[in-house]
């Protein structure tokens, strides 16, 4: 692109030929006021506030900076007297239409307009058309348009009716310079869906995401609704965004697989007595993590939904775990993170009362017990007993807006009733919903809690019955981070040692067909789940591919002639075993 030279307010600058003037000025740090200019939308020059003076040789012109393409040798003045005079006039005209718009008032103040000459209009819309154009050109929803003409011109939807084309993307509202467009009930709706506040379609999935990369949320991204927008594409300097990418299935040939599909938290709604989802300010442990995170919606401030600092917080342990109604197992991680929460709360809100409701404290790790002792010193309340119920049944005015916890304190032997501002539920960790089918896919079995079974609980804790498939983390069962890391390390080293070997030991218990005994009935062929048996019509014999055979022995049991035999599980051996079993 050709480079040209121009002067702005006496400074000589280089710019691309035909570059919009406003951009060049911005680069220089020269602010040109504008209302209708938005970088994502083609400049349109409708508000005229950006009017500047351009001299080219002897020719002097007043132009709108937003859409004026620079050319070689021009000289620009952004705040010459003539410019100021013109701009003042323009602002006054605008005020004449929209006298109560804060942006305009601020400009007027800036330019010393005390009382506009043409009075103050009552409209809010300056008819800049940004909303219409963003809806048309960017979003592509074509909901908004100009109607009527002359002084009666206004922005609306067709026939002024609620349009089903509108995708509630909020683009119009966000570009509107005057705040004329708003979305009603926006806040409530969002918080209902997302207690932690809204997220943009493009976001980092969660704070500790690895790799920490932005993702586009299919459901809220405009492009996936209308095909328009793609603003992000223009904005992204790395050119990393590609909306056309499709979810594809990729086949990768691998020798080993590490199953580490993690866990999910139990749905708090299952426990009706705790009113999760019914009352505000009841958070799951993960919700609290988000809330408490410095990158979180509140910037790490612990506040209730209405923005108040809580005075008392209850943390309930063993919600859904160690509970015959839900999960009998212990989720293993709750005790420690609950202590951590209590500690963090105390750190951030010194005078906040923290109540830990527990069954047993299981602080089994290195330094864990010490941490617990420390918390005791920090003044965290520990109540041994399970919370029976959370309600909003307040007794008096002072309790209004509080959550009432009722629990038996088994240490004291009384039923306690504790009003708090916020409750954190330490919900059980559960296997992923599709754990069973995933496990089946990899030839592993799941236990009754749907955690994948290891090959041997003590001797092969990271292996699975399927060779080359390993497990690490919560997929195998609840465990904390050190354990997970240890297991992952063990699994990876097992994998690496397999990869290092470059060859695999096949199953030792494979089946073989004794050819001389095979009568060629091919009963075995249909029974093999691994298609390891081939029938040779010409020889009238079946043969087993031992590399494919996994040694289930189904063919062996079905072979009427006893030609198929399983190594180490030969008929002879089993008969002898049975005889041995029954010998005494």
């Amino acid at each position, binding site marked *: 692109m050709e480079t040209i030279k121009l002067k702005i307010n006496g400074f000589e600058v280089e710019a691309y030929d035909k570059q919009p003037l406003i951009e060049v000025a911005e680069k220089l740090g020269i602010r040109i006021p504008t209302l209708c200019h938005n970088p994502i939308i083609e400049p349109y020059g409708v508000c005229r506030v950006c009017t500047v003076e351009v001299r080219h040789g002897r020719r002097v012109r007043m132009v709108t900076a937003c859409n004026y393409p620079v050319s070689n040798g021009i000289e620009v003045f952004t705040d010459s007297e003539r410019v100021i005079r013109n701009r003042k006039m323009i602002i006054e005209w605008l005020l004449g239409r929209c006298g109560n718009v804060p942006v305009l008032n601020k400009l007027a103040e800036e330019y010393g307009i005390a009382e506009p000459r043409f009075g103050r209009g009552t409209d809010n819309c300056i008819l800049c058309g940004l909303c219409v154009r963003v809806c048309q050109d960017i979003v592509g929803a074509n909901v908004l348009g100009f109607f009527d003409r002359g002084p009666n011109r206004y922005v609306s939807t067709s026939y002024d009716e609620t349009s089903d084309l509108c995708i509630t993307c909020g683009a119009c509202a966000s570009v509107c310079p005057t705040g004329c467009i708003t979305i009603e009930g926006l806040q409530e709706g969002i918080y209902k869906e997302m207690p932690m506040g809204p997220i943009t379609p493009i976001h980092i999935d969660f704070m500790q995401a690895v790799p920490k990369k932005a993702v586009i949320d299919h459901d809220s991204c405009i492009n996936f609704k209308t095909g328009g927008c793609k603003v992000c594409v223009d904005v992204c300097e790395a050119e990393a965004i590609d909306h056309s990418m499709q979810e594809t299935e990729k086949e990768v040939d691998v020798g080993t697989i590490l199953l580490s599909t993690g866990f999910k938290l139990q749905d708090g709604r299952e426990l009706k007595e705790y009113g999760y989802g019914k009352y505000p300010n009841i958070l799951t442990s993960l919700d609290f993590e988000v809330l408490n995170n410095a990158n979180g919606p509140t910037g790490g401030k612990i506040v209730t939904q209405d923005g108040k600092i809580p005075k008392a917080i209850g943390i309930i342990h063993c919600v859904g775990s160690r509970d015959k109604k839900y999960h009998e197992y212990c989720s293993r991680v709750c005790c420690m993170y609950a202590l951590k929460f209590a500690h963090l709360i105390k750190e951030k809100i010194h005078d906040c009362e923290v109540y830990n409701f527990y069954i047993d404290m299981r602080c089994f790790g290195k330094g864990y017990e010490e941490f617990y002792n420390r918390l005791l010193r920090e003044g965290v309340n520990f109540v041994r007993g399970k919370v029976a119920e959370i309600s909003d049944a307040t007794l008096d005015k002072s309790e209004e807006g509080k959550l009432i916890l009722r629990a038996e304190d088994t240490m004291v032997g009384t039923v306690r009733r504790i009003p708090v501002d916020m409750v954190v539920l330490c919900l059980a960790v559960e296997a992923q919903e599709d754990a069973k089918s995933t496990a*089946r896919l990899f*030839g592993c*079995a*799941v*236990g*009754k*809690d749907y955690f994948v*079974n290891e090959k041997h*609980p003590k001797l092969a804790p990271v292996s699975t*019955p*399927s060779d080359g498939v390993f497990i690490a983390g919560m997929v195998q069962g609840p465990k904390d981070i050190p354990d997970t890391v240890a297991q992952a390390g063990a699994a990876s080293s097992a994998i690496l040692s397999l990869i290092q070997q470059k060859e695999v030991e096949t199953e030792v*218990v494979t089946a073989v067909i004794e050819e001389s005994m095979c009568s060629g009935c091919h009963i075995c062929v249909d*029974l093999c*789940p*691994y298609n390891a048996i081939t029938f040779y019509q010409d020889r009238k014999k079946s043969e087993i591919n031992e590399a494919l055979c*996994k*040694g*289930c*022995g*189904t063919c*062996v*049991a*079905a072979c009427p002639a006893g030609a198929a035999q*399983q190594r180490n*599980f030969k*008929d002879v051996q*089993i*008969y002898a*075993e*049975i*005889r041995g*079993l*029954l010998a005494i």
Partner: protein
Amino acid sequence: MSKSEFEPRIVALLCNWCTYTGADLAGTARMKYPPNVRTLRVMCSGRVDPAFVIFALQNGADGVMIGGCHIGDCHYAKGNYSSRRRAVILKDTLESLGIDPRRFRLEWISASEGDKFAEVIKKFTKELKELGPNPLNKGAQDA
């Protein structure tokens, strides 16, 4: 031998991946079940030739149990399907041969169901005690 003294002998042919591990679990978890069962490991319940069952019954067992993974959970995908198909026919064969089909069981017990294993053995032992000694096994009666 009176019925109350009779201690049945059960041969349990257990699948390596589920029931055998389940039985193991029952052991490590110190679950109580009658000592009448004698277990035999096979790789899959599909490996169990009905001949083993009849062989065991003929050679002194009062009951035979095949233990396998739950349907769909087979380590070998389909082994327990064929095991089940065989077992149905086997039951009929036993019955028409005059062997009480209750002496033969096919049970799905997963690796984590140690309690179920113990439960099944308890039930089976009780049932066999009611059935009395296996008439095929003449030697055992005077032994």
